């Protein structure tokens, strides 16, 4: 039998149910992996070992007493440190929130706790989820389990490395412009960004409120579907969640995609895409065709404008959201006799360079005289990008392309040039702006042994179709089963 940390979520659930092992044994196995490997990977900002074991014991006790145990009873979870878990530190990767202890739990996490899960710890992130490598974390950089000299991607890089390295069976991340899918691709795991408004944002430390989504990083699409089914749905605490009934994604038993049409956008296969990435993604699309899907070329003509639109809108929203960090109610305060100086010094010391840069861009874009030129125009172009997808989905059911232009880059390789770092997200930004769901799945390796990810997109609220197609791919391929030798 495989070691406990090697089990996928379904095997873990089944093993607990059958009494093959206890939740304490399962939880202890992951805590031991963290103990052994996290010195090198640095995926966790906070490990809640004692709390997790106490909850595991409670889960075991509950299971002994009760035949109707909740479906995920005693299964461990890692949570990105931008989501609040009551009485567990939440830093958002920032010094300004060092020591902050939330008194409430994010709805997405709470629903999983209600289904029986327990939290192993909080994973590293770029500060306030702003970045594509975890190098913007104020604490440390997470290392990619496939090559410790490389980044795991970001901003949910801690969650990606934890899942890839077998430090957690599954993890939550957040995706504003690609922060679940890009690290999933770079770390060789699967990652779902749901439709905007499908999962609650309550308890998520806000970055760009019209873009932020809570998503899942897992070893397989089937594992992700289990969590997404639990988290989805209206939350009275988040007015932007949809009333639409949740369609529970039931994954098919047969890898058959007959009747499905997949669009391949020309704009996603351009100069700058690493040849090994293009080859692996084209081969994966062929695999979808082999299962019966019709494949056709499409165009998403405004793709190139997604980057400039995003780098106006997300910083503008961030500059407003991050105004709350002023040293009054929580987090760092740098004392000064003058209240405005206190705000400025607290923020000047508490925020790192990328956060300051984005607050500056956002403030400028919203300032008198520039609002229409930058913010107003970006909102209009966002409509054009959204219409691109709408038009494409009149012809096709799903869209496929590379998740990122390249495989994982070296730590430090892009850290001096913000624009070059932003290019990491060119293929994840358009769908983020449109608010549609996307999933990244592993589809191969480059010549250096680094994982490659393919993205699939679906229309708003078509998660089931998306998960089914991605699951069909994983039924006929084994890329997602490959593990790094850490």
């Amino acid at each position: 039998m495989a070691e406990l940390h090697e089990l996928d979520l379904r095997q873990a659930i089944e093993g607990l149910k059958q009494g093959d092992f206890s939740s304490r044994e399962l939880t202890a196995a992951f805590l031991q992996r963290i103990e052994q490997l996290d010195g090198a990977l640095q995926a966790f900002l906070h490990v809640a070992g004692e709390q997790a074991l106490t909850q595991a014991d409670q889960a075991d006790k509950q299971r002994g007493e009760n035949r109707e145990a909740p479906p995920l009873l005693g299964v461990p979870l890692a949570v990105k440190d931008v989501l609040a878990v009551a009485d567990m530190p939440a830093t958002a990767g920032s010094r300004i929130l060092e020591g902050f202890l939330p008194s409430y739990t994010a709805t997405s996490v709470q629903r999983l706790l209600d289904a029986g899960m327990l939290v192993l710890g909080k994973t590293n992130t770029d500060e306030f989820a702003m970045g594509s490598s975890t190098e913007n974390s104020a604490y440390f950089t997470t290392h990619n389990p496939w090559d410790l000299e490389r980044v795991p991607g970001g901003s949910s890089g801690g969650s990606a490395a934890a899942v890839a390295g077998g430090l957690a069976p599954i993890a939550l991340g957040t995706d504003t412009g690609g922060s679940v899918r890009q690290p999933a691709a770079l770390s060789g795991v699967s990652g779902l960004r749901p439709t905007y408004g499908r999962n609650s944002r309550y308890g998520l430390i806000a970055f760009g409120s019209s873009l932020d989504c809570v998503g899942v990083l897992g070893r397989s699409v089937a594992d992700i579907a289990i969590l997404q089914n639990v988290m989805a749905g209206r939350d009275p605490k988040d007015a932007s969640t949809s009333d639409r009934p949740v369609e529970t994604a039931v994954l098919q038993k047969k890898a058959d995609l007959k009747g499905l049409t997949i669009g391949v956008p020309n704009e996603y296969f351009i100069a700058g895409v690493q040849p090994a990435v293009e080859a692996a993604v084209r081969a994966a699309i062929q695999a979808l065709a082999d299962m019966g899907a019709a494949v056709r070329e499409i165009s998403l003509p405004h793709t190139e404008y997604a980057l400039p639109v995003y780098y106006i809108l997300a910083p503008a929203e961030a500059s407003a959201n991050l105004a709350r960090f002023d040293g009054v109610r929580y987090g760092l305060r740098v004392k000064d006799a003058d209240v405005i100086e206190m705000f400025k010094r607290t923020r000047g010391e508490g925020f790192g360079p990328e956060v300051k840069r984005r607050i500056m861009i956002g403030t400028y874009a919203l300032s008198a005289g520039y609002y229409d030129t930058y913010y107003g125009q970006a909102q209009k172009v966002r409509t054009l990008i959204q219409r691109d997808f709408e038009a494409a989905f009149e012809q096709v059911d799903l869209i496929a392309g590379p998740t990122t232009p390249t495989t994982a880059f070296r730590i430090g390789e892009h850290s001096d040039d913000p624009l070059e770092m932003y290019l990491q997200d060119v293929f994840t930004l358009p769908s983020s702006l449109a608010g549609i769901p996307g999933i990244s799945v592993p589809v191969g390796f480059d010549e250096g042994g680094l994982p490659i990810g393919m993205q699939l997109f679906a229309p708003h609220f078509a998660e089931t179709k998306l998960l089914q197609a991605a699951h069909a791919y994983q039924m006929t391929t084994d890329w997602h089963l490959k593990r790094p030798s850490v």
Partner: protein
Amino acid sequence: MALSKKDVDHIAHLARLHLSDAEKARFRKQLSDILAHVDALQSLDTTDVPAMSGAIFEGSRLREDIAGDAMPREDLLRNAPDRENNQFRVPPVLD
């Protein structure tokens, strides 16, 4: 477009951010580069295009204004950097 030193000072003040001289010099260059990049948007004709202010297409939802359970006061105050009794303490706001 290139930002002046004065622009950077002005934006930093609006954003309530204390920046060192070195940070100001670096941001002046980096923000100018980023703004030059986003200028690509100006080439698109968007005369008849509506602005997209969010990704919700179902319209706003309103609810009745009903009093509910608020978070306990102590939960809200426990992270305060400085407090006095049941209040957050800050430097004088009015002279």
